[in-house]
Every structure is written in structure tokens, then in C-alpha cells.
């Protein structure tokens, strides 16, 4: 296997794949700095489109909404997902059915989840708005946080929990002083992942936002704007969203690798 890795052909294929993945994104980023208002005419580097974003009230309000949804749904999902992971891993004998139930929101197509949640909210007569988007995002974020924390728990040394209890700690003290500090890298990593997913989630937010512009999130705003054509402003916005996601994901990966490991 190894001797193929250095042939020019392999390097060529690698380059093609990388180009396929990243050239569109690079073009988008480059165009977001284009001074020209036309997508195909290059007129030099400028930050004017980033500046324009600051003066667009619709975009600012949508960005605010996205931040509210992402922060609150991440916070709720992180607490519940961590506790769920601990509960499931501590009582392993519950069987496969529970496993499937927990993982389902990660696998169910977004569109199905979106329709289901919409039906659920209209059936129960809940007025839709930011709070319904938050609830909807908690549904899938919970599954992702739980998955990340559970992965860490596979190598968790449960005897330290018993040791803590043996030394006189109550269950809550053990959670606070022993379990959570050891799991913290995974918990934060799960939270960052959830935040990233929530920031650029479109379909579910679109279905559960309800009528009116008050609860428009950033992806919904971009979708609305793009119907009138791709403007450099959207390129700038997309570049910003990507930067935020990239930073969060990098942090998440760092934490998961460099975390405290039990001997």
C-alpha cells in the first residue's frame, strides 16, 4: 500500500479531490472580497460587502436570531445530552432499542424531522416562533452531544466514581468534582458541534419558524435573498458563517484529542 502513496498518479488524484471539495468555497471567499458588484467581474480587493452587512437590518436581526437559537438549543442539548450519555453508559443492559432511539435524530432525514415537528407543533396548537426552532434544534443536537460524550465514556474509568463515593462524596458531588471535569473536553466538544449544526441549519428552522419575519434565522435570510440572485453581500455572509463553523469545529476536534485521559 505504502509504495503507491508517492506515485505522481496518487498525488494527482488527491489534488483533484481536494480541488473538487474546496475550489467552490475558495471562489466564494475570493468573490466576497471583490470590489465589483457583479459576480463575474473582478475589480480588486475590498471589504465593502462585509461593511454592507453591518448596515443591513434584516441580516443583523437574522444573525441575532440564529445566535439566540444556537446558544439556547446548544445549552439545553449539552446538559440533557451529557446526562443522557451518562445514564445510558452506566446502565448498559437496556439493550439495542434504546440505542436506536437515541441515535435516530442523527439519521432521520432533516426534511422528515422538519415535517414531523411542524405537524406536532400545529397539532398541539403551539404558536411557532424562535422557541419552536429552539426546541426543534434541541431534538437533533441532543443526539449529537450524547454521541460525542458516549464515545468518551467508552474509555472512562468508572472506578473513579466508586472511589469518590467511597471517600464520602454524594452522587451530585461526584458528578460535579469527578465525572464532569474528566468529561469536560468531550462535553465542550459536543457543545461546539451542536452550535455549528444549529448555526447553519435551514430546513428544520424553515418549517418550525412559523409565519412572519420575526423569527427568520440567518440561513433562512440567505435563502430569501438568494432568490433575487447571488450578490457579493451573500458571499461575504456565507464566508463569515463558514469561518464561525470552522473555528468551532477545529476547537471541538482539538479538545477531543487533547483531553484528560484516564490511565
Amino acid at each position, binding site marked *: 500500500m505504502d509504495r503507491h502513496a508517492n506515485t505522481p498518479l496518487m498525488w494527482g488524484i488527491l489534488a483533484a479531490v481536494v480541488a473538487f471539495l474546496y475550489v467552490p468555497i475558495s471562489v466564494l471567499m475570493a468573490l466576497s472580497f471583490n470590489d465589483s458588484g457583479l459576480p463575474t467581474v473582478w475589480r480588486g480587493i475590498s471589504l465593502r460587502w462585509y461593511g454592507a452587512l453591518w448596515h443591513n437590518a434584516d441580516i443583523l436581526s437574522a444573525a441575532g436570531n440564529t445566535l439566540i437559537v444556537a446558544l439556547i438549543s446548544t445549552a439545553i442539548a449539552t446538559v440533557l445530552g451529557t446526562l443522557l450519555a451518562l445514564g445510558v453508559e452506566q446502565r448498559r443492559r437496556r439493550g439495542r432499542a434504546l440505542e436506536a432511539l437515541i441515535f435516530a435524530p442523527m439519521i432521520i432525514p432533516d426534511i422528515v424531522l422538519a415535517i414531523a415537528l411542524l405537524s406536532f407543533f400545529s397539532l398541539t396548537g403551539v404558536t411557532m416562533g424562535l422557541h419552536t426552532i429552539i426546541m426543534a434544534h434541541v431534538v437533533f443536537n441532543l443526539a449529537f452531544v450524547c454521541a460525542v460524550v458516549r464515545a468518551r465514556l467508552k474509555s472512562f474509568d468508572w472506578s*473513579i466514581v*466508586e*472511589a469518590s463515593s*467511597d471517600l464520602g*462524596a454524594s452522587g451530585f458531588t461526584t458528578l460535579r468534582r469527578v465525572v464532569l471535569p*474528566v468529561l469536560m473536553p468531550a462535553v465542550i466538544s459536543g457543545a461546539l458541534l451542536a452550535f455549528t449544526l444549529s448555526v447553519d441549519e435551514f430546513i428544520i428552522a424553515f418549517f418550525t419558524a412559523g409565519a412572519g419575519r420575526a423569527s427568520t434565522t440567518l440561513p433562512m435570510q440567505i435563502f430569501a435573498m438568494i432568490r433575487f440572485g447571488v450578490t457579493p453581500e451573500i458571499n461575504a455572509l456565507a464566508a463569515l458563517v463558514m469561518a464561525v463553523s470552522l473555528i468551532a469545529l477545529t476547537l471541538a476536534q482539538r479538545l477531543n484529542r487533547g483531553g484528560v485521559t484516564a490511565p
Partner: protein
Amino acid sequence: MKAPLLSLRGLSKRFGRVAAVCDVTLDIAGNEFFALLGASGSGKTTLLRMLAGFEMPDAGQILLDGQDIASLAPNRRPVNLMFQSYALFPHMSVRTNIAYGLEMERRPRAEIAERVAEMLAVIQLDGLADGRPDQLSGGQRQRVALARALIKRPRVLLLDELLGALDKKLRTAMQLELKRLQHEVGITFIVVTHDQDEALVMADRIAIMKEGRLLQCGTPHEVYEHPVDRFAADFIGVMNFIEAGRGRSLAIRPERIRLFPETADTITEGRVIARAYHGLDLQLHVQTALSPRPLRVRVTSDAADRRPVAEGDSVTLGWNLADTRMFTDQEETP
């Protein structure tokens, strides 16, 4: 005899259909070093976990100073356990690990600092107090685990597979250290081990467990010299068995067999098929007509020097009947 500190009464525990511990009744005195000895699956660890509070007995009582503690949660018992894996908190320094138990008791800060410093001096890890557990060697980790449990001054300290993970030299040093601590601190130690040498060296009394039951309990001398049955005889130390007919076997310890005896109750001839020098003594495997397995013989280097033997030599062995024991053969249960 004065009232026992710890008294187990008819303690039983089942896991599904397996009886892990079966009707164990046992008294342990204050300041005693007590060893629970048994093969894996003999129930010794389950018994220890019931004493620590991690398993609830199905039946029976655990009396500590006459009080039944069987249903108390682990954090409410004046009993501490040193885990086989040490179970040190990986995110805390050595100092914080040791202080943890006192913090749980909400002791004043000054008292905690003082007692931790004292304990660090005892385990001779003052210099590493601010290091993390993963920066320590196995022996150092064990000392931290011991200090963390000892600092609570428990009535009873439980030790799971005491020194299993350590190399031989460190082990001997720790054994002596533990004995010293036992006398200095005045704590009752209950040790679980599958290592019979360790039990013989360390313990005031030994309990041998088999299939969840207490097979024999006594001083190291008693269990070594007067095993109750063939299993116990085979389990503690090395034992030669010679078939004596009618389902019975004669058992004799290697050190009771003499080489070229002048007088002896039983004398037999054999050929040395293996020879191993151990410094203090010489161990021989001698094939005789008495048993299909060669007899294991242990002679002092002193005696061996007087009349050297080599592999292949013919030798005369002898022993006195007073040094032998007769056992009824048992069905070997796997």
C-alpha cells in the same frame, strides 16, 4: 476474646443464577491484618465490595461495632477501599487526590493542609505533591491511592488485590511499609489477594474462599500446616500428593521431605529430573514410583552443599508420618 470490630453474619450475594458469596460468617478483630484468599471467581472481591458498600447483600448482616452497616451507602461508611486499579482522579494533583476525602468531611482548610502534608511525608512523595497521577510510576500511584484512603482514618481499610501490579522488589518494600502503617495508624486491614505468598507474609489471619464459601480461616501457620481439605492444601503453598488407595491421598510439603535421611518413617528411591537453585534453598523434582508426578523437594543450600546432587542422580528421600496429612480426594469442580 474481646468483641470483634467487624462481624459478618450469614452474608450472601447472588448475581442472576450464580451464588457469588454464600452464607459467609466471619469475625475480624480490631487492628488485625486479614487476608481473603481465593482463585478468581471465588467471591472474595464480591465480599470486599459488600464491605465497601458497592454491592448490597441479598441476606446477612455486616456488623461494625455491633451496628449493621449492610444497607448504608458507600459514602456513609467508616470503611475505605483501595482499588486494584488505584482509581486516582486523573484531573487532580496528588495533593488534591489525597485531600479529597477530608474535603468531603468538610474539615477546616488548615486541618486538611496539615494532614495532607503529614500523609505526603509518610508515603514519601512530598516532592511530587503537585504532579498529576499520570506522571507517577506504578508504585508511586499505589502510595497515593493508599494515602487517599488512609487519610480518612477509616475503621477498616479494604485493599483489592493489594500489590498485584507491582514488581517483586517494590512489592516487598510496600509489604513492609503496610505492616508498619498498620502498627502506627492502628487500622484494621482487609486484603483481597490471589497471591498466597503475599497472604502468608502479610496477614495475621487468612480466610480461604472457594465458590463463594469460606473454606478455612486461621493464622498463616494454621492454614499452611493444617489445611482442612485437599483444595486448601493445594492452594496454599506447594504440596505433594501421593495416592494412598481408597480415594485418599497422602500430602507432604516439599520442605518436609529430607534428602538421604538417616532415619525416617518412610523411605523411597528416586531420580532427580530437575533442579533449580534459589539462593536460600534448592528445589528438586524427583521422580519416584509412588506417584505419576515427580515429588517436589526443597532442601536448604546448607544441606545441599554437604551432599551435592545433579540432574539424573539417584537419591533417597524420606519423611516422618507426623509431617504428612491424609485427605479424601474430591471431585474437581471446575
